[in-house]
């Protein structure tokens, strides 16, 4: 009976073990089932969201073609990859990159390092002003190298606009003066008012430059005469104030933006458009044009004046330092409005003229030769408040011209590492 009891006990124990194992198996199966269900649900939901998003994108594109853009593209609409990218501390990384590349390299490393960089990014070493690579103490100096005089002949002709820098043309065209939109890529635009800022910017910090070139008054008068630029404060510049009254669309079919729309848009960009001689003396049927030039890492990174003009206002927008490589321009809406930039506004013989260097990842230090105190993306940078526009005027540079005269081909500044 004892043996029987022991056998029964063993068999009951086995039964319990089997039951436990079965229970564990069924538990595992339940967990697996839950994972399968959850994964399937996620895939289905994700697919639905993706399809609906694609539909809305197509709708946007259709609306864009019809010229009735009602939805504004948001930065994180593209995909999670861009969202993750946008959360990176790119400004700090760029500053660190600049500091690291400002360290003096051992002389024996320099030729090897710079030749490797040149091989990777297509630098033309033959046109360097100083061809001895050992003279460049670090990559920052090499990056901001000078080129031999005469290697960049400037296209002559007073009605010719020359390229301000080396690079690749990313976009050229006409700005829609009605909406004030510039095309970033086909179907994707950004606002010129956000890009260049307006005098009514809610967070505008204003200052005046300390430049004083009054000793060159005669030269400035000649500059104004040759380029048909109105003198600041002269009676000629005082034009009657315009009142804009909306009388609706009077045209049946409008092919070209009217002059008044241009004037309206430009007067929003700068309060001084009329009073400070921004408008040209001889009225033309004008349009607003734009050109975007991308500087690759191997390009000569100085920028020069594309025409004879007078720079009157500088607006600094501290911002992000996203990459401005063509891929990002195609996929990152409002890229130029988000990035750190310096909008230089002024006038030339045909009216409004502006040139805006836009910073990028690792190349956030924008330098202006005629404004030595100005720095960007630096620890000494006083312009740190985000979403703030820091405006300075160059009236003191020339009382005659009301700004800084810039001759075509003259070096204006450049982009440095950091």
């Amino acid at each position, binding site marked *: 009976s004892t043996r029987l009891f022991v056998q029964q006990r063993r068999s009951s124990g086995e039964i319990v073990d089997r039951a436990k194992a079965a229970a564990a198996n069924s538990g595992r199966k339940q967990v697996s089932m839950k994972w399968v269900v959850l994964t399937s649900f996620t895939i289905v939901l994700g697919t639905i969201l993706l399809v609906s998003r694609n539909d809305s994108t197509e709708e946007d594109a259709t609306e864009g073609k019809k010229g009735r853009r009602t939805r504004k593209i948001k930065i994180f609409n593209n995909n999670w990859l861009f969202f993750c990218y946008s959360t990176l501390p790119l400004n700090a990384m760029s500053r660190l990159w600049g500091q690291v590349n400002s360290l003096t390299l051992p002389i024996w490393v320099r030729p090897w390092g710079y030749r490797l960089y040149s091989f990777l990014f297509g630098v033309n070493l033959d046109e360097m002003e100083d061809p001895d690579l050992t003279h460049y103490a670090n990559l920052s100096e090499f990056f901001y190298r000078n080129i031999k005089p005469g290697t*960049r*002949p*400037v*296209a002559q*002709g007073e*009605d*010719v*606009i*020359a*390229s*301000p*820098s*080396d*690079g*690749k*043309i*990313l*976009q*050229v065209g006409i*700005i829609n003066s009605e909406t004030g939109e*510039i095309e970033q890529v086909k179907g994707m635009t950004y606002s*010129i008012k956000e*890009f*260049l800022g307006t005098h009514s910017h809610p967070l505008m910090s204003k200052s005046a430059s300390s430049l004083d070139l009054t000793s060159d008054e005669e030269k400035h008068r000649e500059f104004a005469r040759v380029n048909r630029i109105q003198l600041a404060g002269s009676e000629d510049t005082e034009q009657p104030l315009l009142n804009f009254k909306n009388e609706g669309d009077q045209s049946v079919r409008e092919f*070209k933006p009217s002059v008044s729309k*241009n004037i309206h848009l*430009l007067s929003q960009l700068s309060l001084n458009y009329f009073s400070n001689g921004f408008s*040209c003396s001889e009225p*033309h*049927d*004008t*349009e*607003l*044009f*734009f*050109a*975007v*030039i*991308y*500087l690759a890492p191997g390009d*000569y990174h*100085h*920028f*020069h004046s*594309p025409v004879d003009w007078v720079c009157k206002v500088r607006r600094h927008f501290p911002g992000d330092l996203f990459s*401005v490589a063509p891929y990002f321009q195609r996929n990152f809406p409002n890229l*130029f409005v988000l990035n750190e930039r310096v909008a230089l506004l002024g006038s*030339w013989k*045909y*009216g*409004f*003229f*502006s*040139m*805006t*260097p*836009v910073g*990028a990842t690792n190349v956030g230090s924008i330098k202006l030769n005629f404004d030595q105190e100005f720095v960007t993306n630096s620890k000494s940078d006083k312009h740190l408040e985000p979403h703030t526009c820091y405006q300075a005027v160059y009236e003191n540079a020339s009382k005659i011209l009301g700004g800084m005269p810039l001759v075509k*081909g003259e070096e204006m500044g450049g*982009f440095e590492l950091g």
Partner: protein
Amino acid sequence: STVVLCFEAPTEFKFDVRVGDKVKMGQKLGIIGKNDLK
């Protein structure tokens, strides 16, 4: 880095470059038609 030009010019202005072209500093970007000159 990028340089963006925005400017007012007579309607006769024509770009001499196309999207994708490589340019050098000083190269002609565009010209205003001669008809507009006075």
